[in-house]
């Protein structure tokens, strides 16, 4: 089976997010990008299928941030091919645009199963797996937590609904799946192995096709939520904080006896 995993670089949420002077976007000059964590689960799911049933795994990413290192890490984890799509993506692109670009790029890459992270921190205009499915006119299923082959031309997937209820669906291939969580924690690639990949492996590059789509809406303001309902912050040494919290709980009758 040929599996394609799309990988996206997103702002690292652990870092402070700075907004630009216009107040309409992140300050892209300081933003630190990392791989979308749900994409790591998509890759893990692909590698599990490869290990258990045999598959060729290709990772594809639009060029932005330190994407080279991310792609080499994917190779170190066990992906067979890494393709970087060259274009003007440093300022961030809408998901509609990314889907349109990738749909064309995938015309030249064999794919029976396409896996993407279920969502990304900045996909304000929708999720990639679904929009890519639409663009390629392929079936799509999101919030997937398990994939198993079902014969040669289909997979059985688990889709999670609220309250922990799970739907089991059979999906004809080719298809696009939005992966929520792989059945196991994404594997880790040691730095030495990534370094070795950087020396021995090559990233393939493809020029991005010209596409004419956008988000369909224009951001006029990007800001922190208003402070209105914010927590009262308790400060002090751990013992002081503990004493204050204890008093609050006691006050509310939350301590037994």
């Amino acid at each position, binding site marked *: 089976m040929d599996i394609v995993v799309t990988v996206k670089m997103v*702002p690292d*949420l*652990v870092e402070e*997010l700075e907004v630009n002077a216009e107040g309409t976007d992140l300050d892209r000059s300081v933003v630190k990008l990392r791989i979308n964590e749900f994409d790591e689960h998509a890759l893990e799911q692909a590698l599990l299928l490869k290990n258990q049933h045999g598959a060729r795994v290709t990772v594809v990413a639009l060029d932005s941030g330190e994407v080279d290192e991310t792609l080499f890490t994917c190779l170190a984890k066990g992906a067979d091919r890494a393709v970087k799509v060259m274009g003007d993506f440093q300022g961030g692109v809408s*998901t509609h645009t990314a889907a349109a670009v990738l749909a064309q790029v995938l015309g030249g890459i064999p794919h029976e199963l396409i896996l993407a992270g*279920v*969502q990304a921190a*900045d996909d*304000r*205009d*929708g*999720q990639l797996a*679904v929009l890519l*499915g*639409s663009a390629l006119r392929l*079936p*799509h*299923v*999101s*919030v997937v937590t398990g994939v198993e082959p079902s014969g040669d031309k289909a997979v059985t997937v*688990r*889709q999670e609904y*609220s*309250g*922990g*209820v*799970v*739907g*089991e*669906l*059979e*999906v*004809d291939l080719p*298809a696009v799946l*939005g992966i929520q*969580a792989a059945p*196991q924690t994404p594997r880790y690639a040691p730095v030495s192995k990534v370094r070795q990949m950087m020396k021995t492996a090559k990233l393939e590059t493809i020029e991005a096709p010209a596409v004419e789509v956008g988000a*369909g*809406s*224009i*951001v*006029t*303001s*990007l*800001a922190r*939520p208003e402070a209105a*309902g*914010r*927590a009262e*912050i*308790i400060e002090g040494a*751990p*013992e002081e*904080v*503990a004493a204050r919290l*204890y008093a*609050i*709980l006691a006050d*509310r009758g*939350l301590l037994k006896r």
Partner: protein
Amino acid sequence: MSADIAVVVEHLEGVLAEVSFEMLAKGRELAAAGGGMLWAVLIGHGVTRLAGELGAADGVAVVEQEALAHYTPEAYEKAAAAALQALAPRVALVASSSMGLDQAAGLSGTLGWPLCAYCKDVALTDGALTAVSQIYGGKLLATAEVPGEHAICAMLPGAAAAAAGRKSGTPPVREIPPPALDGLRVRFKRLIQPEGGDVDITREGILVSVGRGIGSQDNIAVVKELAEALGGAVSSSRPIVDQGWLPKTRQVGKSGLSVKPKLYLAVGISGAPEHIEGMRGAELIVAINTDPGAPIFDVAHYGVVSDLFDVIPALTEKVKSRA
């Protein structure tokens, strides 16, 4: 250009989702602002009886077909597309939920209507549509202008009060001819119900809830000790369950359980929208997190910006000594 509003109603196993009523409440506001009708779009097989709960709408557009007996992203998207094409609303509201995720973006792709995902708010002013999306894990809000005749907004659960959208009485029903649903490429096999656990976190008065800030499975003992001292139970965010550190029955949030304890102590949890969805109803929320910008502080009543490994043992000690 139509000023009508359509709400794509969500239901599972014959029960309407809470978010459906929230969307009807928001839809009423939008319909009033634009002077249009409010439509509820109901998709399924044998679901017309649910129209009796959709009294907040002016009309219910029903797509009924045997192939829609069980939810599948493909069949439901086709049915919703047929309904939205027939109604041609100014705005279609879809739930920002597991099901809605496939629906909202899928409809945007098929119909070519712009989509604003993760909406906390949507407004129509003199016909102009603005949508406020909660992005970057809940850290930032993006306000956008949405030009054009039609748009889709995916509404986050909790964005509007459900009460205003909950009205009995069956509005006039309009039957939408179902689209061709043969040769479907996604087929329903079965629904798997969650297994019961040792503890029912929805019934606990005190929850000490742990997130990725805990660092390792062994460290969970630290919060467990506090939970025991308080006479409560340990719950968690999703990554803790995904890593197999706690059973699924302890997960709070969108794809876990919704809890309303007297005390919810969020420890090393960032407060992503998907987590907040499951605990915002708690009576008292206390958050401990090293990141002062963590969105959990936007819903917490009290916050402590510090290392959980400093604060939790100190609090456990204090509770144990009852001093």
